[in-house]
């Protein structure tokens, strides 16, 4: 197998798996195993892709191109850059963990469920690999279809409002993006992201940016977030905040910043202000939140703001730090949501006033939550410390007060994370915590521990990502030169 076909395999293998699962009348157990097998194969193929990726090479790698429809200049064009490689890796790993979680808890209507999870995997990988605007859009929208059904069917009691809000919000953004894509592509004569020219149109920039700001989300476009994260099944919340939100941030980097350099500088202060608002506001809400998932949800909002701060700083350190932080936060919030799911399964609730004292007699749970929590609050030496430090240093070069705001928010992060840890693990035993509630089982450990191991690895060697995302010495120059 040659290296280029890995790109397409990563997209279409899970989609083929989804079709297979829908067609074969297998039992719940067999369906789950098959789905898990497919998602592990994805991880394997991604490792192969990463091994064959030439980090010293420039430009798009493992590129595949086929005509889709020629008269408007649309082609099926996929390939990876360094930063997209890491996001694909995050996707396949987080999706495998989420699929495994679904298998572990034994989701009802398993064929529909696992098929949709695989479909979501393929679509999300497609977003990170697409190099044609229409292909990008198609995958960006395609993520929504499985998410809608996953939340709507397997979600919590108030899932109906959550799904409608989620879909309407995201579609409002992405349909305006479609209009922007039409305008950009017809003017440029091609929809290709690699060949396409840069544009100076502020309207088009806003059309793209709105879609990404809703997906990420940035303040004040986060209205869908708390409901969706609370009502979705925990493993779907995990990929929503861990992976799907990154698609919005990735779009900012790959399209909004790269293709619209002039509008980016024009709106830089505005976007930085919204990002900083998301960071501070999200952190405050996370501190005030009364339940486990609420804290993670709002901290995801804060982290999206932080990453956008790094991206729109437009400096070398900012870009490096943003990519690192995307991966680190992806792993953190996936782990946290899966742990939240484990806690909710044992206590039927995520509300802090009903929880507490779970550390006693449950050392594995306590250790896991403690480790992830401590990494999440960016303790020095952790992967997210490296990411946040790079971002703050990067945005410092723009103006010092941005990093002052960011540093303040990191203090808030420590506050809400420690509050979460103590409310779940320590304090008096909560009324819904039964004595006989088990510690995390090996199956659950098997899902979360690899994610934590990845985080520890990144803590030890953050440069693994931050120095291997952009070609050349200066990421800012690479972004400016369209990643050439």
């Amino acid at each position, binding site marked *: 197998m040659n290296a280029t076909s890995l790109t397409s395999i990563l997209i279409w293998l899970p989609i083929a798996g989804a079709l297979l699962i*829908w067609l074969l009348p297998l039992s719940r157990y067999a369906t789950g195993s098959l789905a898990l097998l497919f998602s592990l194969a994805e991880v394997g193929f991604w490792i192969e892709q990463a091994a064959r990726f030439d980090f010293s090479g420039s430009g798009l790698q493992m590129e595949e191109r086929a*005509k*889709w*429809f*020629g*008269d*408007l200049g*649309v082609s099926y064009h996929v390939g990876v850059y360094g930063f997209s490689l890491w996001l694909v890796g995050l996707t396949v790993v987080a999706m495998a963990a989420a699929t495994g979680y679904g298998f572990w808890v034994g989701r009802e*209507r398993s064929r529909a469920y696992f098929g949709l999870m695989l479909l979501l995997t393929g679509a999300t990988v497609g977003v990170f690999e697409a190099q044609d605007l*229409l292909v990008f*859009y*198609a*995958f960006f*929208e*395609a993520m*929504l*279809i499985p998410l*809608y*059904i996953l939340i*709507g*069917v397997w979600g919590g009691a108030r*899932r*109906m409002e959550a*799904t*409608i809000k989620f*879909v*309407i919000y995201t*579609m*409002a953004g992405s*349909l*305006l993006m*479609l*209009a922007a894509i*039409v*305008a950009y*592509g*017809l003017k440029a004569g091609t929809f290709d992201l690699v060949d396409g020219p840069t544009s100076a149109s502020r309207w088009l920039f806003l059309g793209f940016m709105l879609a990404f700001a809703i997906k990420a989300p940035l303040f004040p476009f986060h209205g869908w977030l708390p409901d969706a994260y609370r009502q979705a099944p925990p493993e779907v919340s995990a990929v929503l905040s861990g992976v799907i939100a990154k698609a919005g941030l990735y779009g900012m980097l790959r399209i909004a910043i790269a293709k619209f350099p002039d509008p980016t500088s024009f709106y830089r202060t505005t976007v930085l202000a919204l990002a900083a608002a998301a960071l501070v506001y999200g952190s405050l809400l996370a501190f005030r939140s009364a339940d486990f998932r609420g804290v993670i949800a709002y901290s995801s909002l804060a982290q999206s703001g932080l990453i956008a701060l790094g991206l729109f700083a437009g400096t070398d350190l900012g870009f490096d730090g943003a990519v690192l932080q995307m991966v680190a936060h992806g792993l953190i919030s996936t782990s946290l949501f899966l742990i939240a799911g484990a806690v909710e399964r044992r206590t039927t609730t995520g509300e802090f006033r009903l929880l507490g004292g779970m550390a006693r007699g449950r050392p594995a749970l306590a250790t896991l939550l403690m480790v992830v929590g401590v990494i999440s609050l960016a303790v020095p030496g952790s992967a997210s410390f490296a990411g946040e430090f790079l971002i703050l240093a990067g945005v410092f070069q723009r103006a010092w007060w941005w990093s002052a705001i960011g540093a303040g928010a990191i203090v808030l992060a420590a506050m809400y994370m420690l509050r979460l840890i103590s409310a779940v693990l320590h304090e008096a035993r909560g009324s819904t915590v039964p004595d006989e509630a088990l510690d995390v089982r090996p199956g659950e450990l098997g899902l979360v521990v690899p994610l934590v191991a990845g985080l520890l690895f990144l803590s030890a060697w953050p440069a693994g990502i931050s120095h291997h995302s952009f070609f050349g010495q200066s990421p800012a120059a690479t972004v400016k030169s369209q990643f050439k």
Partner: protein
Amino acid sequence: MSLHTPHIDWFGLAPVFALVGTSFVALLCAVLVPRAVRRIAAASVAIAGFTAGIVLAIWLYVDSANGHTIVSGAFYRDRWTALGQIILCGIGLATTLLAVEHVPGWGRNADPARRDDHVAEFFALLLASAAGMVFFVGAANLMTLFLSLEWFSIALYVMCAIDYDLESSLEAGLKYLIVGSFGAGALLFGSALVYGATGKISFHGIAAAAASQGLTGDTFVVVGIALIVAGLGFKMSAAPFHMWTPDVYEGAPTTVTAWMSSATKVAALLLTFRLMTTAFAGDQHLWGWAFAIVATASLAIGNFAALVQRNVKRILAYSSISHAGFMLIGLSAGSALGGRALMYYLIPYSAMAFGSFAVVAARERELGVPVTLDNLAGFGWERPFLGVAMWFFMFGFAGLPLGGGFVGKFYVFAAAYQHGWVWLVIVGVLATLVSLYYYLGIVRAMYMRPAAELALAGGSPPRERLLQLTVGAALVVSFGSLFAVQPLIDLARHAASSLPL
């Protein structure tokens, strides 16, 4: 006295004759074939007719690279006609398969023994209406246009009322008759005005006369165009000429609704595009704006009215109004790209429209009552294949990239943008956003209702192999058109090259 008869290119009219001929045979089945085998005999005749129609239309498509008129300029033999005929005959074939199990409709308590009484007449009417439509898409002058319009409309009026012991069916037929006649009257009056001003009835002749006599913007011609737009607007059920649509779609037997919602739109939109770009090219700024406004109205009314409906057939009726709006965006651009966009859009649209009504027909048969969002609960889990097909169609209608509907929307937006109408793109985008609510509402009803409501329907539903086959075919077409964009666009481009763009 010698009577002058024009030379007739019989082969150019072959699809029409195939359908008319089989229509007569099907009618004979009604009297000559014993009741026990009447349904299967008439259906076989219809299948033969539509298959012959498809084969002949493909042959004509291949053989008519240089489009021209035949029968003294009364009919176009070109690829625009042929491609339209292929699509129409394809829908006709699917309708026949659906009708075998579903005509007359199931929403009634009539004696099952009488189900076969008038089934052969139904197939005869179906073939006759299809013959009218395949003639209509090739009409080359105002006379053949009006003639064929009445031809297929009269057949449709009767088909709507085919469930004659059901009040709603009779009501639908009568409503369609009265409103349709009004539209036909407007069309006829408009044609008369255009003829009066230009002295010509052929599309080319009108264009030539308008150009040579400086009749562009002439009052009679403009009023004539306005009335013709109104008359055709009734047929394509575009707002504000849509009032009949929800009632007729709801009342007519679902098989007939499926046929009307897909085939009538194909015929009306293709003919309208040809008529406007050929005969009234000089007045494009006028009809372009007119259709842009009609498109906006259709998008607004179709989508907002659908939001408050509970009856699924009414929701789909309003959805068809809004899709007329989308296709009119492409039409109003009046460009080669607009023509391609329209032709392409029609393919996945008609498959999805037909398929979704077929699914409704299955549920209707199961319950024996009109299908609403409430009694759709749990349907997705009970009938997995039909459920998946339905959510597929709904997401496809909404323009999510699950099928050709997405590319179709992209094309019509591109056509509008190329024409310089960014505002129309924005209107289309906002309309899509609104439409999501009711399309997702149907998916929600099928899959996401609380468990207590799921156990509504009882008994095991009939197997309905033919219905499943047609739904499967609709799925293949709507899904396949996402991947086979290039071949389909090539077909559409060759078809549109027959038009003077």
